[in-house]
């Protein structure tokens, strides 16, 4: 009975995911598409929770649906509301595409079922459990991200950096928003400090419970998004020269720790016993700042137009 209920709920969630995903990409109305996509992201967060991946549920809600949604909504301001289809699709072309898609789905599904059947019980979960005691943290996802596969995370910070540098190289920010009404203004006044506290909490708690640098950074960035929506043009970001340092901080500390350990005779990013937890927290703190500044700059869309924030200036303006 219980198992049947779970299966029914799973099927319902799966059907809703497919339906929303389909609706988000099938509509010609972009505004609608973006709204549906944000709803899709929230539903996806529910799916992560269902599949016992709370770290992902947090990240999806904050980054996948939250910040990506904010970015898409901001982009809608400049886009025409309705889109035309790409190059005139002939009926035959459309059918070929549909046929190929179905074929692809069937083949990948078949391979996935075969792979699931083959791989049960021999993946890396056991190895993680065996070594988590030496990792310095007790949240297994954080252990994988910041210790076992820390090198992935290092390069991932570089990915964020390259995307943001690409955005910055494309020119100055778009214009900001008007002044907020009393209700939004009031909300922002007490929500922003709350978000900052929450970010700190997420960063700290990541060592033993769901959370960590990415969720914390995204939460800080959400505060910046709110500030900008509330009429603060620069979204609380410091002057360009300082922002550059903050952007680099995560990678500088990460590399610095890794290479210093190598210099001290350990391997690159091989944390000495007993120090792992502390070093991971240091790395994560710097990474949180970098991620927050990067995501906030990506949302603002470039260096702010207002006066002293051009790349070459070293003087910080203030609000």
């Amino acid at each position, binding site marked *: 009975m219980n198992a049947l209920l779970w299966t029914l709920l799973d099927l319902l969630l799966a059907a809703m995911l497919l339906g929303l995903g389909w609706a988000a990409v099938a509509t010609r109305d972009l505004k609608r598409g973006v709204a549906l996509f944000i709803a899709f992201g929230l539903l996806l967060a529910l799916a992560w929770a269902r599949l016992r991946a709370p770290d992902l549920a947090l990240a999806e809600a904050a980054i996948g649906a939250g910040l990506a949604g904010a970015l898409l909504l901001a982009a809608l301001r400049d886009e025409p509301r309705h889109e035309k289809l790409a190059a005139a699709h002939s009926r035959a072309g459309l059918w070929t595409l549909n046929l190929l898609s179905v074929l692809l789905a069937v083949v990948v599904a078949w391979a996935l079922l075969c792979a699931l059947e083959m791989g049960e019980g021999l993946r890396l979960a056991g190895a993680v459990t065996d070594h988590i005691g030496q990792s310095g943290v007790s949240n297994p996802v954080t252990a994988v991200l910041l210790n076992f596969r820390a090198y992935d995370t290092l390069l991932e910070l570089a990915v964020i950096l390259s995307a943001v540098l690409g955005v910055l190289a494309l020119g100055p920010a778009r214009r900001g928003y008007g002044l907020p*009404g009393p*209700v*939004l203004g*009031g*909300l922002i006044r007490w*929500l922003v400090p*709350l978000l900052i506290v929450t970010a700190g909490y997420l960063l700290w708690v990541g060592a033993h419970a769901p959370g960590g640098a990415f969720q914390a950074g995204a939460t800080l960035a959400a505060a910046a998004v709110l500030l900008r929506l509330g009429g603060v043009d620069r979204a609380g970001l410091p002057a360009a020269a300082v922002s550059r340092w903050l952007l680099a901080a995560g990678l500088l500390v990460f590399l610095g720790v890794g290479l210093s350990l190598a210099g001290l005779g350990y391997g690159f990013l091989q944390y000495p016993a007993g120090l792992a937890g502390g070093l991971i927290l240091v790395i994560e703190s710097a990474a949180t700042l970098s991620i927050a500044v990067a995501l906030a700059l990506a949302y603002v869309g470039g260096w702010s137009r207002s006066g002293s924030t051009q790349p070459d200036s070293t003087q910080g303006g203030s609000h």
Partner: protein
Amino acid sequence: MIDFIAIVLIVTGIGFFAVGSIGLLRLPDLHSRLHALTKADNLGLGLVTLGTALLAGSLATAIKLLLIWLLVLAASAASANLIARHALERGDER
């Protein structure tokens, strides 16, 4: 006994959600839709959180749930206000 009360609260809360969603789909204009949505959702969520708080078994969790509800209240009040104001400015009441 506590379980029973909790389940009743949660089911009632879900009922409010359902009514709110029907209102969102069926009511004629933006303001009444907003009205249905915010009232029903806030009350519905309140009842659901109350029910789950009873089931949670620890005070700390219950307080966290209460905080979540308060946050959602604030956010939904603000967003409803924004939507209404935007509609008012644009004169788009549908």
